[in-house]
């Protein structure tokens, strides 16, 4: 196991899709290699930050236009939220 292998296997490691033996050997390397540990941790954090980010509410005018399009399609006024 070396630093290049960590990058190659990073995708499956982060998605917990590695076989247990390879996973363990990666974790042994991470315990010894500060740089690889930082790469793994900050990449994991990148995913978490994006995954947890809440989308902004629709602007009112855009919501009205969506409402109007749905009314036209569904055939009756849609309750405003």
């Amino acid at each position: 196991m070396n630093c290049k292998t960590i990058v190659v296997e990073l995708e499956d490691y982060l998605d917990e899709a590695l076989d247990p033996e390879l996973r363990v050997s990666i974790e042994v390397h991470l315990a010894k290699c500060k740089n690889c540990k930082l790469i793994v941790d900050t990449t994991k954090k990148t995913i978490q930050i994006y995954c947890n980010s809440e989308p902004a509410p629709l602007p009112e005018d855009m919501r009205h236009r969506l409402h109007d399009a749905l009314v036209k399609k569904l055939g009756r006024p849609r309750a405003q939220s």
Partner: protein
Amino acid sequence: MNPAGQNPVQPPSLPSQVVKEDEPVLVAAAQAGDINAFETLVGRYERKILRLAQNITQNREDAEDVMQEAFLKAYEHLSGFQGNSRFYTWLVRIAVNQALMKLRKRRPNVVSIDEEVNTGEDLIPREIEDWGPSPEDRYKQTELSDILSEVIADLDPSFRIVFQLRDIEELSTEETAEALGLSVPAVKSRLLRARLKLRQKLNKYFRRSEIQ
């Protein structure tokens, strides 16, 4: 995160942050003609579908069109939804198709999500710094939102779309591959690149040396 692989006997679990438990009930009601149920689904997912469309098209007007078209198309084809996938996943696929069509129409020479991706030495990160436990807490919500939008917008479209579907919308690798007409290895190589590039771009905001 995709939990697939933790237990190979189980199918990939539902993304808990995206799909609420009552979704199948609402979908069944909407299929039976309950307009209120469909409106509830629209209200639940409109923000997410708009963000998805915005991240793919990088154009506000196109994103709004895509969002509208996706919901209208979903309603039109609701009776054909078999429940083999989650409704949200199905909706995301519709929105992605609409967004890609829009993108290809506007910029036919720019979109190339199926081109070969080189997976060479340049993937190995150069800047390696600690971010600390909660780097996002250093920014106000609106600032963080702007940073995330700016950084993802700077990605190559072929990486951005894969990251969007896989890590933000929480589709599985296989679902992402199917939605984009890519092979599973192609999705995985793009996802790795997208994740590493985003990490690198966020580094300037989140590294410890940025702390005032």
